[in-house]
């Protein structure tokens, strides 16, 4: 997850939006911001800043440490016995099959759609660009509920692959489309001038450069699959995450839970390592200065109709089906229920969800600030280390983070267990990278040069902050806050484990209704989650076109 590869960054921007763990998103360039013309000399960070950043990084790494210590605390023989049971092998195989089928499917779908939208003369590309991101507005477990309520036979691997592919392919589409837009026409034209046909030119000059974007997107899909709980539980498809939660439900053995979590952790590290290898070290940025030119779109000709039909089918399956099913259950619900009580309940739950989302977003922004300042103003090995630690911890499944916080709070600070504070802390750890990335792009929009210019013109520290830094950084910081808040408002896994008794969120209310197979009761909460997530699509679309 290096900062140097724009593809991975873009990929992570997608993660920044969707509901799961993910590594670092993009550094957007703010309007009017110019590329730095020369490198700033490194200034050592102040001890206070360094200490704060280290504390935040330590907080995010804490779950990993707790899980490992806990898993190693039992008798070694017992742990080994537990891990070599056929049950673990079965879980591994399930996880493996899901990854092997879904990851390539999302890559094919994501790259294909991005190429059609950005490189061909597909009609109304702007509309398709939005539609290809629209699946992100439908939480995956809502989509699973929609499918299972109309096709109960879909349970198992097939249903799991179908729903996760449709829900997660935008993670590949987003970085690939963004990269395709920035690629210059020059290289394709040079290839053509050297006697290579249009298709050959695409395969030999464009495709190799998509590698980091594709591998970054695939990484996000893989991490989401490892962390996925809602979809797989509904599809009755057992993986480590669902097994941990079941174990927790039937009577919690934290050593066993930690052992399972350790396996999950190892799988995450494995995925991260594979991604680093797959991304390669090749330089993908355009060489040389000067304005880039967009290539002429490739004429689709008689392939126009099949292309539109294919993309239309994807939209139908990924967006239209879930939304239509939710709408139908809403209608069913209003017919069978006496109106009034349902609405009040919905508003109450929405209120507490929004409250948690706002507080969690604020906490994440506050915790992300030291690291972001460190990275933007004092880049260096220390800053990179802080960044890597934060992102690594945050790419862990919510269930691991939640388990670790439970273990930690019970044994160290019992007072905090079953409080909203612990839940907010979990959200902050899970979504910290989103906040940090947004803060960094905000700070980058207000570079020290502008602050210096303001000081030369007679402004003191407060004046510089109020008149230059804040106005310039505000849009990015706000976007980061919104991304975190939206992610929180549809978070299910950590919320299930950590929500204090009596606290109800949209995801929890939806989940308990579907657990009782009361699909009509679940529909209002699903509809509200979709409505809340619509801004996400808008925010993310800007990352492709800006």
């Amino acid at each position, binding site marked *: 997850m290096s900062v140097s590869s724009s593809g991975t960054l873009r990929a992570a921007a997608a993660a920044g939006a969707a509901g799961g763990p993910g590594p670092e998103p993009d550094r957007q360039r703010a309007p*009017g911001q110019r590329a730095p013309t020369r490198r700033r000399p490194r200034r050592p960070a102040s001890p206070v800043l360094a200490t704060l950043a280290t504390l935040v990084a330590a907080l995010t790494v804490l779950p990993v440490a707790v899980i490992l210590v806990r898993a190693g605390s039992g008798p070694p023989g017992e742990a080994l016995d537990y891990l070599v049971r056929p049950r673990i092998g079965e879980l591994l195989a399930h996880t493996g099959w899901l990854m092997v089928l879904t990851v390539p499917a999302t890559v094919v779908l994501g790259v294909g759609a991005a190429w059609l939208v950005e490189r061909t003369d597909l009609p109304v590309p702007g509309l398709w660009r939005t539609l290809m991101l629209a699946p992100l507005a439908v939480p995956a477990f809502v989509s699973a509920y929609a499918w299972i309520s109309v096709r109960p036979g879909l349970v198992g691997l097939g249903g799991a692959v179908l729903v996760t592919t449709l829900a997660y392919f935008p993670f590949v589409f987003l970085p690939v489309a963004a990269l395709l837009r920035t690629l210059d026409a020059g290289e394709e034209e040079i290839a053509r001038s050297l006697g290579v046909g249009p298709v050959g030119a695409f395969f030999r000059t464009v495709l190799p450069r998509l590698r980091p974007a594709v591998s970054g997107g695939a990484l996000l899909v893989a991490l989401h699959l490892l962390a996925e709980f809602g979809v797989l539980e509904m599809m009755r498809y057992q993986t480590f995450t669902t097994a941990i939660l079941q174990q927790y439900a039937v009577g919690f053995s934290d050593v066993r839970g930690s052992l399972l979590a350790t396996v999950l952790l190892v799988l995450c590290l494995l995925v991260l390592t594979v991604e680093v290898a797959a991304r390669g070290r090749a330089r993908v940025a355009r060489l040389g200065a000067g304005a880039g030119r967009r290539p002429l779109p490739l004429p689709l000709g008689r392939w126009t109709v099949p292309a539109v039909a294919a993309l239309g089918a994807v939209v139908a399956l990924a967006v239209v089906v879930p939304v239509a099913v939710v709408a139908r259950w809403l209608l069913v619900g209003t017919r069978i229920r006496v109106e009034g009580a349902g609405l009040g309940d919905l508003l109450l739950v929405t209120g507490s969800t929004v409250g948690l989302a706002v507080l969690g977003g604020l906490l994440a922004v506050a915790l992300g600030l030291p690291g972001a300042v460190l990275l933007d103003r004092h880049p260096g090995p220390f800053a990179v280390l802080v960044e890597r630690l934060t992102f690594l911890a945050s790419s862990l499944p919510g269930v691991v983070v939640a388990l670790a916080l439970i273990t930690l709070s019970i044994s160290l600070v019992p007072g905090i267990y079953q409080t909203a504070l612990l839940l907010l802390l979990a959200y902050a750890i899970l979504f910290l990278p989103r906040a940090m990335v947004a803060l960094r792009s905000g700070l980058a929009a207000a570079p020290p040069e*502008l602050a210096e*210019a303001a000081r030369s*013109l007679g402004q*003191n520290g407060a004046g510089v902050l109020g008149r230059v830094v804040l106005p310039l950084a505000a849009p990015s910081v706000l976007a980061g806050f919104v991304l975190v808040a939206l992610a929180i408002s549809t978070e299910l896994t950590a919320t299930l484990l950590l929500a204090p008794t009596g606290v109800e969120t949209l995801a929890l209310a939806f989940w308990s209704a579907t657990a009782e197979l009361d699909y009509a009761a679940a529909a209002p909460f699903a509809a509200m989650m979709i409505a809340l997530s619509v801004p996400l699509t808008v925010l993310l679309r800007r990352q492709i076109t800006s």
Partner: protein
Amino acid sequence: MSEVRLSGVRAGYGDVEILHGVDLAVPSGGTTAVLGDSGSGKTTLLKVISGFLRPDAGQVQVGGRTVAGDDAWVAPERRGVGYVRQDGGLFPHLSVAGNIAFGLPRTGIARRGRAHRDRVLELLDLVELPADVAERRPDQLSGGQQQRVALARALAPRPDLVLLDEPFSSLDTALRTATREATARALQASGATTLLVTHDQGEAMSFADEIAVLRQGAFGQIAPPRTIYGEPVDAHIASFMGEAIPIHGLASHNQFRCALGNLEAAGFVTRGAVVAILRPEQLRLVAPGEGSVDARVSRVTYFGHDSVADLELVSGTPLKGLRARVVGPEAPAVGDTVGLWVVGPVRVFPG
């Protein structure tokens, strides 16, 4: 009186010292160009004067007031030093008027751009921009216009000193000249003392009353342009200031004996083996036999307003880099044999 005075200033980042004790005085109302390659410490020098870097030793005075050194420290915003950067550094969230009025005192609740309307228009006029750019956004301006707005913004609070950090180097050639001339006129009209930092010799010579050559964090020579070009203190500055042909020979009295004959010498004339620096424009091409020595033209590079002829001595004595600058249509053809005549004295340095 000097507007800026630096004495024994040492400065750097962390353990890396970049300025190794520099002394500089810019007279009030004067224009001094600091000329140096990248990495010579030019920007560091400006940061020390403007107050964004504390010197590790030495003293900085602006307008007779000590702003750094001797336990004194004046914050950047209280120094009254205008600063124009290479990229303009305009605030992207403010209009042109908002940018220019940024450093002017706040006046109640009135919008800054309106409150200082007259001053903004006056400054736009000073930097030779039309009044209708006032409401535009910085990203709607060309590079040259952005630089002019940056200058207007720096001049708005009427600073006594303006620092220019390579303000023209991001502009293309034609725009660079026009912007430079407009800047010079605006600065002269404002009466501000100016310190220009640049790596472009022509820019330094045409812009400034005085040039300070900075190399590896110390000044090599500080003198008016004519002096620094015609009477450089060493061979390095001679070739840094313009094209120079090094010629080895023997000096005695005011004579320099070399492959081009006996030439008039100036500078640090000692007896014995020395190096002389000859500028290509000092060589005149005459008919064969009429000069002090004959040469053959091996190559001609045509520039329009003049040409450069690469030359080889007919005698066969190797003389690396021998070339003459020939004005206008008088350029010789490749293969011609010409006589060479040296105009004016050559600068001589210890070999």
